[in-house]
């Protein structure tokens, strides 16, 4: 979990979790692919674009399991 400690963010560490394209398995560290980290609230999110298969998506570690759909249903 230390990878996601924003208070002590370390660039070498936070780059470690995501290495490969989840679609084709090629390296996302390819200089012509894009692995762009940004912060969303408590979470670090990896925007990924793979030049080999053109897959695009966001990857983030799950630190807490939430069920917002159930909560929404209750409200309804």
């Amino acid at each position, binding site marked *: 979990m230390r990878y996601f400690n924003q208070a002590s963010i370390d660039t070498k560490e936070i780059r470690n979790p995501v290495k490969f394209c989840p679609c084709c398995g090629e390296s996302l560290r390819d*200089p012509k*692919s*894009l692995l762009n980290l*940004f912060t969303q609230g408590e979470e670090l999110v990896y925007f990924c674009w793979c030049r080999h298969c*053109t897959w695009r998506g966001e990857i983030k570690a799950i630190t807490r399991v939430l069920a917002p759909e159930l909560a929404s249903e209750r409200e309804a």
Partner: protein
Amino acid sequence: MLTQEQNETLIRVGKGTPVGTLLRRYWFPIAASSELTKSGTKKVKILGEDLVLYRDKSEKLGLVQERCPHRGVSLVYGIPEEDGIRCQYHGWCFNHQGACTEQPNEPEHSTFKDRINISAYHTEELGGLIFAYMGPEPVPVLPKYDLFVKENVIRTIGYAEIPCNWLQIMENSLDPIHLEWLHGRYFEHVFEQQGRPVDEWPISKHHVKIGFDKFDYGIIKKRVLEGQTEECEDWAIGHPVVFPNMLRVGDLGAHTFQIRVPMDDTHTYHFWYTCFIPVSGIEVPKDYPISMYEAPLKDENGQYITDYIDGQDMMAWVTQGEIANRTIERLGTSDKGIIMFRQMVLEELAKLEKGLDPICVFRDPQAAEHIKLPQEEDKFSVGDLLSGVAKDWNTRYAPNLDEIISLCKHGKLLTGSGSHTT
């Protein structure tokens, strides 16, 4: 935050680099037509290459490498001839294709000149600008984006040499939020320091929502400000970033292309190409000249000039460093447009490497004819907001701004101004 390697891919523009190769598929403006009078020359640097732009005695434009291959002197001081440019040092002459056509002091039947060529590139004029193409044949069609061919407008062209990489300038255009801070709250701070009234400034509203849509020519940038709904033009229409290097902004009274031309990895030539739109029913003179002016970055004390919108932008671009270090940046959710643009650069690069034309490279003249770009006119639900504050953005340096406003509002030239010639 990016890896160093991915940052390097995105920022390098020299010959043989990935993005440098991509950018060589596009036409770039390099000067105003008015800068090159008959037999004139201008030194330009584009994509890492030092070049000389000239207009020869037959009024044809040429763009060649700056240094004469003979002894390396600068052809900026060369002599434009009937068909090409002659080196001022020993008289070697080069035509528009870069072929050496004369070596006056070599033996009459020498074939030496036949083995001498210099780099030479294609040029075209459009809308008062001179464009260059530095990529491979076949040469694509120069796209006629609407402001270059729009009728019944008054044009004025600002320029600045910005000492930083092109990408951080483009990223600013994919960052709508900076409007409310850099041009809103910070402007109010500058006004406070200058003793100007703060509450008159209209660009400080909070962003409720921002959005980015891919379209045929790049990315449409959209926003909803406090008090607006999604029905507003800022969201329903928005304004475009035309790939790879142009932003369009404006309102009811003025439309502007901001065009960023990478000179090298750490310098960018910037054009503000503005069309002022006259009020309904007014025809502006057809032969009214296009003025040109420099938008200054710093004052006489070396301080950034931050009391105008574009000066604030330039300060923000340059103070990130010559090349922004994206390995230590901390992006948030409001920076998704920036990430989208980075992806688009790499995506178009991938297309090129597969042998395809990237976006905005035109082969069909009809497709490149009068390309209408979307743009909100009811800016921030205030209408002619930007043209209303024309003296708070780069056009305040246009030598004929008062006359432009007079012509657009009342159809009248200012008597005795004489300021509009360039």
